[in-house]
Structure formats: structure tokens, C-alpha cells
């Protein structure tokens, strides 16, 4: 068994100890564990974020494998459980809290209350809007990092991170919708997830 000390010593030592201390004491909530959320969670786990709260209602399906971090062995499992397993294989000392629930108008405020950093990683644009509106309206302590616009295989460089409001960042090209004829592919979804994960790290370290 690899020890926590070994994993910590193995981080890129060109960063100061202070950097990893800040990351380790941080807590990030991820809502939606699809192509964005599963990749964001693993990137943050590799970066040494101390606590991750993962929220999704769904189970891993074979159609998820084209862009989500899951494997064939996860098919049929709850995404919360499958992702927790994968995170443990990267770093078993990260605290992972899971909530298996669908976000609705009724539970949205309660689910995210008190969270300092929240990644919105839903698939459905109406649920994205529901979460963002509710959090910005009722949780002024939360900084929200959302993903919007990563379908297809258009120019990667159009995917950007923008501060839209005081506590609200949007990553994506804001245009590329997923619809019949224009699906989701791993590269652009992962690029967008990378933007979200890096924005989270900037919020923690800056």
C-alpha cells in the first residue's frame, strides 16, 4: 500500500509546500458526473485537492464510455460509486463524499448550501440554468464554475474560461450545442473539463 506521505512526496516538488497545503485543505463540490464531472474530479484528485463532494443520480451506461472517465467494468454501477473507486486508485487519501440524487428545484438550495467552490457539470441546459440561478440567488458564499458549449470537433481554441459575474465563471465556447447530428466527443469535453478544473485550482491558489 502506498502511504499518504509517499504520495505527497511524489508531487512535483518544484511547487512550494504551501501550494500543496492549500490544495489539500480545499474542498470542491462537483454536480453531474458525466463527461465534464468525471474528468474534473480525476484531475482535481491528481492535483491533491483534499475533499471532493460528488453528486449524480445516474448509473454508468455503455454510451458513456466515449467521453466519460468510466470503464467497461463500471457499466451498471452508480456513477458516484464508480468515480469514488477510480479516485481511490489515484489517491486513496482524498476524502470523497458522494450524494446519489437528482438535483431538482426542491433540493437544489439545500444540496449546495455552504459550498465554497462548485463545478456545474450537467448535460441538460435547463438543469444547468436551474443550478446556476438557484446558487447565485441563494448562496452568495459559493463560487460557481460552469461548463457550456463543448459539443462536436470544432476549433479547440474557442473553448475559453470567462468570468461572467462576480461569483460565476463559464468554461466552453458557449455556442456548440449537442443535438441530433452533433454529438459529444472526448477531446472537446475533456478540454472543457480541464478549463473548469484549472479555474478551480486558480480560485484555491490565487
Amino acid at each position: 500500500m502506498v502511504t499518504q506521505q509517499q504520495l505527497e512526496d511524489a508531487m512535483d516538488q518544484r511547487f512550494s509546500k504551501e501550494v500543496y497545503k492549500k490544495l489539500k485543505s480545499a474542498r470542491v463540490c462537483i454536480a453531474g458526473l458525466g463527461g465534464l464531472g468525471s474528468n474534473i474530479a480525476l484531475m482535481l484528485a491528481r492535483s491533491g485537492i483534499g475533499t471532493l463532494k460528488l453528486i449524480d443520480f445516474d448509473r454508468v451506461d455503455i454510451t458513456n464510455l466515449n467521453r466519460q472517465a468510466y470503464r467497461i467494468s463500471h457499466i451498471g454501477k452508480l456513477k458516484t460509486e464508480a468515480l469514488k473507486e477510480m479516485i481511490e486508485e489515484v489517491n486513496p487519501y482524498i476524502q470523497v463524499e458522494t450524494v446519489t440524487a437528482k438535483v431538482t428545484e426542491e433540493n437544489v438550495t439545500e444540496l449546495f448550501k455552504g459550498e465554497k467552490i462548485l463545478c456545474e457539470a450537467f448535460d441538460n441546459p435547463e438543469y444547468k440554468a436551474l443550478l446556476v440561478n438557484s446558487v447565485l440567488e441563494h448562496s452568495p458564499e459559493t463560487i460557481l464554475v460552469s461548463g457550456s458549449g463543448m459539443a462536436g470537433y470544432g476549433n479547440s481554441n474557442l473553448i475559453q474560461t470567462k468570468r461572467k459575474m462576480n461569483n460565476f465563471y463559464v468554461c466552453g465556447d458557449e455556442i456548440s450545442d449537442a443535438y441530433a447530428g452533433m454529438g459529444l466527443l472526448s477531446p472537446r469535453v475533456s478540454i472543457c473539463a480541464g478549463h473548469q478544473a484549472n479555474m478551480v485550482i486558480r480560485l484555491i491558489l490565487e
Partner: protein
Amino acid sequence: MAKINGEEVTNAAGKTIMEYLTEAGYDSRRVAIERNGSIIPKKSYEEVIITEADTIEIVSFVGGG
């Protein structure tokens, strides 16, 4: 002139948020809107009237994740 998403918009003042969204082709179920630094609650879209002095940011979500 009201400023919406960084641009001065001539025909927006005097309209409700909902009227402006419909005219500009937004789907009100997919947006989040900030007006002068504060989020506009969804339930107020029919009531809030845009003024000449307003600075408004409309974020419209697309699908995929």
C-alpha cells in the same frame, strides 16, 4: 442606453426581461441573468423592466457535458 452583454442596445429599455429575451431569441429556461451586479430571480423576469442605465449580462446555456 442599456448595455447587454457588453454592447449598447437601443431597443431594450422599457421592456420586461421576458419581453427582451423572447425578442432576442433566448430560451428563458436556459438562461441566468445579472442586472447591475445582482442576479435576477427567474420568477421576476415578467416584472423587471429594463432601464437606460442598466448593465445586463445574459448567460445562455447549451447542452452537453
